[in-house]
């Protein structure tokens, strides 16, 4: 048990150090990532000023329950959600390992692939938060006007933290499960692209999913993608409250458990199919 802990600790430490090598580039690219929000701010201003001129609401115009500042706040908050839930290169990395045969190293070494990748990801995320904290704080400070209600209540904040943490786990295991498809198909880059597309659209990264009308909205609420970006942001903004909030957190938890199991099953089945050649 002790030896194992030491192993995992070493993995975590090495990953952290590896990641810190490029910290300058990192902080800069984090700041750059907020640029698209600038265009969104102006786009929604144009939308709201037009809606206002058609139906004067004295500056209180709302679109699907969102005031102008809510929209901007929403986009800023999805950046935080995505900082937890996005897993760049996870699924494609697993597929590449399978295709090129490097997945063998997990099979012959006494290291579990999913745990290793999870630790590696945690290390990356920890470094990311350490480096990205400053740019994030700067942007949120400059944009504090878009949060007229200020900080939410402690309970809401607690729920928000829980939803973010689960967003990370869900993002990891969901993508890992998708990566396992590599055991069955050799070339999956276009499949991953389509997933990324759906994720961008249905997770609420592009717009709050409340905007989807009728059956589309219900459909998107049924699939787990909304917990990657929309749900934590909605919790913070107080869009989901009381019993609805509790239920939402439980459903998110359910999806996390589901994908932990699914990734395990897919890995076990995949390894059974896998045949490594050469060396």
């Amino acid at each position, binding site marked *: 048990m002790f030896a194992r802990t030491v192993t995992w600790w070493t993995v975590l430490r090495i990953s952290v150090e590896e990641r810190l090598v490029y910290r300058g580039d990192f902080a800069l690219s984090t700041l*750059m990532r907020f*640029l698209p929000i600038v265009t969104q701010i*102006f*786009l929604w201003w144009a*939308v709201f000023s*037009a*809606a206002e001129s*058609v139906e004067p609401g004295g500056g209180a115009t709302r679109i699907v329950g969102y005031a102008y500042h809510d929209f901007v706040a929403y986009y800023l908050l999805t950046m935080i959600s995505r900082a937890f839930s996005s897993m760049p290169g996870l699924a494609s990395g697993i597929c590449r390992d399978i295709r090129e045969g490097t997945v063998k190293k997990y099979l012959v070494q006494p290291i579990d692939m999913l745990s290793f990748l999870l630790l590696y990801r945690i290390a990356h995320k920890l470094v990311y938060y350490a480096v990205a904290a400053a740019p994030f704080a700067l942007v949120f400070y400059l944009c504090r006007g878009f949060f007229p209600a200020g900080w939410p209540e402690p309970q809401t904040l607690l729920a928000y933290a829980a939803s973010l943490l689960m967003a990370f786990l869900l993002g990891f295991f969901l993508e890992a499960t998708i990566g396992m498809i590599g055991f069955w198909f050799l070339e999956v880059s276009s499949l991953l692209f389509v997933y990324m597309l759906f994720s961008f659209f249905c997770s609420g990264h592009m717009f709050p999913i409340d*905007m989807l009308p009728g059956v589309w909205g219900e459909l998107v609420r049924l699939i787990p993608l909304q917990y990657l970006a929309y749900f934590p942001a909605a919790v913070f903004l107080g869009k989901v409250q009381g019993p609805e909030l509790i239920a939402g957190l439980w459903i998110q938890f359910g999806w996390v458990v589901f994908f932990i199991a699914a990734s395990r099953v897919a890995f076990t089945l995949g390894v059974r199919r896998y045949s490594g050649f050469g060396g």
Partner: protein
Amino acid sequence: MRARPSYLRVLLTFARNSLVRDMTFRGNFLIETFSSMSWVIMNLGFYVLVFQHTPRLGAVTDWGEYAFSWGKYEFFLFLSTTLVINSLVQTLFMENASEFSELIRTGKLDFALLKPIDTQFLISLQRVQWASLGNLAVGVGLAGYSLFRLGWTPTAAQVGLYLLFVACGVAIMYSLMIALAATSIWLGRNQSLYDFWFYITNFSRYPMEIYHGPLGTPLRMFFTFIIPVMIVVNVPARFLIRPLVPQTVSDLALPAFAILATIVSLVASRYLFQRSLLSYRSASS
């Protein structure tokens, strides 16, 4: 043997070779076409949603000189222009530019430098990505549909000017891309090239009128006069949407500036590219 290669024939050969290559993996080609088209269609879906909640983009009042607000189908015409320009850039240059930083990292640029043809030409057009033309079709289709819904038939002069300024737009985008790619010689590796490109060109994707106010005006100025991405789509789109009679000073000044910006961008990026080649030190062996 001719001293100077025929650039047109080389270009056609590049195009043919790429097509042969794409057609070898036909399934992959189709998937690529459809996946990039579905991205476009999803984006379109977003704007359809937006226009369910507002009839126009931007109120006409108190916008002064830039008073022009975009209705649904006017905006879709704008969007189709974005699609046309972006798909042309992607088809012709995108793959090559990202390949370029790879050439530098691996040292394979040596081979390009040795060939008896202009290096910039060679590395910019080597590979034509035919799959991206699907988006061009979507763009043209969307433009046709929007014009039909607007009940608006552009004159031949309008179409001619539109095509001219689309070409200018493509040239400006290309200059920006090649300038960004050239920086990878200095930086050794430029993985975030595509990101950077995406973030900058993001500003070309909306009508410039939406940028106004204490923050918007400087932004509009910056992305018009310093990095001219905002005129890339705005200028051609305007020719298609408004009658050809100039209504404000900017209706005349902006296209004139677009021509100037195209020339300056091309020359400047060419200069930057040549300068960066001087710093190339090759890699490995």
